[in-house]
């Protein structure tokens, strides 16, 4: 099968609309197709990866733990835009830890989240064959 670079662009907050949840559902299903997958988080999408999410008060499911399972699906490239974090008063410390085991490096645990600049994000997008924007 052809292998393409799939980039899932997440621009919306995790709750308030369904985009973030339904994006993650595509990522999980798409993992079965053995494509080269990356996720991008920008604008309010950076809130999707914040730690300590608690949805008890709004009656919807907290799906943020699912991000930590992505490594098991070979989804190991989560790009977060530095400017979007800064604009919202967030830093790397506000994000949850998402790790994967690198099979090419004796299954060493490595972080999946990479914080990159807006200019680098443009390069990531330019390098993608298929961009799905949510």
């Amino acid at each position: 099968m052809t292998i393409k670079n799939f980039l899932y662009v997440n621009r919306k907050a995790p709750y308030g609309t369904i985009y973030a949840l339904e994006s993650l559902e595509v990522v999980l299903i798409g993992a079965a197709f053995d494509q080269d997958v990356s996720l991008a988080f920008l604008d309010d999408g950076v809130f999707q990866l914040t730690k300590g999410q608690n949805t008890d008060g709004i009656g919807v499911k907290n799906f943020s733990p699912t991000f930590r399972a992505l490594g098991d699906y070979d989804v190991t490239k989560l790009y977060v835009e530095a400017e979007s974090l800064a604009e919202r008063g967030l830093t790397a410390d506000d994000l949850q830890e998402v790790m994967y085991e690198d099979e090419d490096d004796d299954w060493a645990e490595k972080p999946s989240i990479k914080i990159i600049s807006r200019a680098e994000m443009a390069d990531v997008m330019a390098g993608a064959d298929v961009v799905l924007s949510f």
Partner: protein
Amino acid sequence: MKFGVVVSEGPYTHQAVDSAYLFVKAALDAGHEVPRVFFYHDGVNVSTRLSIPPQDERNIQQNWTALAKGHGIDLVVCIAAAQRRGLLDENEATRQGKDANNIAEGFRISGLGQLIEMGIQTDRLVTFGD
């Protein structure tokens, strides 16, 4: 060129599905191929045959059904998104014990795999959404 199209906003509220329709028509007129359109998020609401817009307005569902029929376009509605929003075909209605179904002719309910497959098999994937 082969285009895959994603529609991710609902009919009548948002321009996305109209723009997608016009894009597909223009692409076909220009000699391109559009083998499949995938409806996701509120975009799945396009597929109900029970919508009744005022007579002097465009009928979005009927336009898509006609376009699909004329050009053999596969109109796929995401099953997970459709079930959340009460869109069922006959099989699903029976399977889920529901007393009605509402999917229009030309649309079919299937999984998100169809979206990924479309991304793999087409030259360009174009999303119409917010």
